[in-house]
């Protein structure tokens, strides 16, 4: 007697009905070790991110002082009203937004262009990858020192170049209307490498045969970029944009180190305003209220972006 079951067709095999309970059990079986592995991270996340954030929101309703223990007297919405009525608050918020507007487009477009060029290089690709990514590994303090010397009036490298060409030297960090552009330029040089690497990875994921097929059909290189590369990188682009907007909104180091928020407060971003109120003026309750308002702004920007990309993805 043969033990091999003999079936006429594949369809005749006894199919075990999918039991929803069984799948849940298996998922559960995986979920437990997963949660266990994540526990250290979650504990730290609760302790250092969620906890302080909740404390910040609570504190924003009190006249908390850095020099006194406890929360201090209840202020209701007083801190929020003061912030919304303060021109210093609004100008610092605008400086953060202005910096984001100045840096996001070049950091996305240039990263894409350079990644495209580096991807095309048949030889020495490692060199371009390294060259564009290297500045990104520098700490902000080092970047600030390098660029402070480059921008220094009278003595700096840029000053020598510009005056050597017979032009009058712009006051890079000392002119209120130019200082933010100078900070933005430094930031583009510094952080371009991160987006560049994301784009390069995205480019390498595009199947080569698409290009070959397009080339056979007579598509010019520019058409290939427009019809294949850009659409295939759509997901990378939306990731790069959202990461970049959040990174730019976090502006603090560059103006704090390079201009101290000056000249005459022209580059003081929202986070430095929070720092000044909390640590220079000891008004931690008010600083918490400003932080909460800034948190709402970042949340709103992120929410709008997620909404837009969701809709876009559903459209395809």
């Amino acid at each position: 007697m043969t033990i091999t079951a003999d079936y006429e067709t594949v369809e005749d095999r006894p199919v075990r009905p999918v039991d929803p309970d069984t799948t849940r059990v298996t998922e559960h079986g995986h979920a437990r070790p997963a949660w266990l592995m994540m526990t250290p991270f979650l504990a730290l996340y609760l302790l250092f991110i969620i906890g302080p954030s909740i404390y910040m929101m609570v504190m924003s309703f009190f006249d908390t002082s850095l020099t006194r223990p406890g929360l201090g007297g209840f202020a209701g919405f007083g801190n929020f009203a003061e912030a919304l009525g303060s021109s210093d608050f609004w100008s610092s918020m605008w400086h953060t937004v202005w910096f984001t507007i100045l840096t996001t487009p070049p950091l996305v477009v240039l990263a894409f262009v350079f990644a495209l060029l580096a991807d095309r290089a048949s030889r020495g690709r490692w060199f371009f990858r390294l060259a564009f990514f290297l500045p990104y590994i520098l700490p902000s303090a080092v970047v600030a020192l390098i660029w402070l010397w480059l921008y220094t009036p009278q003595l700096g490298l840029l000053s020598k170049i510009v005056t050597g060409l017979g032009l009058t030297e712009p006051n890079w960090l000392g002119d209120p209307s130019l200082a933010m552009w100078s900070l933005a330029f430094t930031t583009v040089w510094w952080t371009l490498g991160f987006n560049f690497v994301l784009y390069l990875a995205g480019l390498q994921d595009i199947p080569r045969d698409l290009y070959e097929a397009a080339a056979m059909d007579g598509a010019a290189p520019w058409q290939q970029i427009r019809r294949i590369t850009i659409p295939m990188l759509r997901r990378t682009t939306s990731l790069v944009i959202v990461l970049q907007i959040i990174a730019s909104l976090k502006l603090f180091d560059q103006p704090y180190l390079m201009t101290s928020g000056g000249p005459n407060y022209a580059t003081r971003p929202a986070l430095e305003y929070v720092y000044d109120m909390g640590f220079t003026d000891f008004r931690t309750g008010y600083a918490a209220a400003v932080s909460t308002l800034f948190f709402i702004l970042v949340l709103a920007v992120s929410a709008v972006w997620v909404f837009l990309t969701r809709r876009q993805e559903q459209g395809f």
Partner: protein
Amino acid sequence: MTGPMSRRTLMKGVFAGLGAASLAACSSPVGAGIAGTPIDPGTVDYWNLFGGGDGVRMQQMEDAYRKANPGTPLQAVTLAWGNPYYTKLTLATVGRKPPNVAVSHLTRMKTLQAADLLEELKPADLARHGMSAEMFNQRAWNAGLVGGKAYAIPIDTHPFVLFYNTKICGQAGLLDAAGNLAPIAGPDAFTEALAKVQKVTGQFGATHGINGDTATPWRLFQTLYSQLGGEVLGDEGTRVVLDDAKATQVLSFLRTLTVEKKLMPGSIDYQGAIALFANGAAGFHLNGEWEISTFQTAKMPFGMTLVPNVYGGTYAVQADSHTLVVPKGGAAASGQLDRSLGFIKSMLDQSMTWAQGGHIPAWLPVAQSDAFKKLTPQSNYAAAADSAVYDPPGWYSGSGSDFENIMGSAIGAVEAGQLAPDAAIAQIRTKLSALASTASPV
């Protein structure tokens, strides 16, 4: 077995290491913080904010103390100066883990005292260690009193001074027979001196930090404005008493020097201003005396003197003092106050070492000694200690404060030609009034 280390051996090693570290932590400040025990009883725990040349000299003084007091271990912590320092000192004291002795600027000490974070230093306790009010520079001592009580021991006065390049000033004919800068009096004489120097250098007469530096413009303004007898804040900072006419006079003068006559660069940062003076592009440099080490290291021919009495009234110059304070609770353990005061006295006795860094000793036994009188260029401007003008009292005032930022931002903008004097005064008034009417968080 000589094979590669197995995972198990490695893990054992790591855990053993962690265990040892956590045991060792019990006697460390972290362990003491968690267990709520006093940090190393019997030692002097000392916080300061000195870097650069001052840091090196402070360490020499600490070593001398250690040698003289082998029974009292000294734990010295150096933190970056500025708001981070005062934040840490405040939080450590509020959290009842203060150091036994800490450095504070005299103008910031007032805020710490208002927040009830300092121990009063009673005359009887000071007398036990050979200190009394009349042994200190009276200007610095009295400026540090709150309600007639002492909360801080001044160790120096560090005024705003005039650095000059002796070679350039000699060529410009500005030196006297002894090779020192001949006295300059009045705005015209000051302008003329800068113009003469500019002819020699071909670039600038004087420099001082403006970009990204709000403190230096404030120090220069305060020096000139005080020579006119002007004040900015009254009633402990609750009232803005800025004298528009006097402020306009000073701001217009500064604007003339930078924007109109280009005798000073209206846009240069702190380091750039130093570099321009050090490489001979300017013959004068306005800054705090602490930069003395920078120019000594540069091996350039320079002298230091009082900032000229530009407006001819009672001489006045912006300054602050480093003081030593005992944070509240820092003297809780028995005998701790005496250990701390003994340490403070040791620092005062070593004022001669401290004076190398350009600071004028507040401790008169040293300040009036022949040794200090022979110390040049320090003794040339030692008179500044008696004419020192400190930042006005107020919870938002003092070195590195919001007050200095507000003043310095507007003054710097005038010097850079971005704001007219009256617009700068309006901006100062708006920003200061907002703070003056805010309830003090201290």
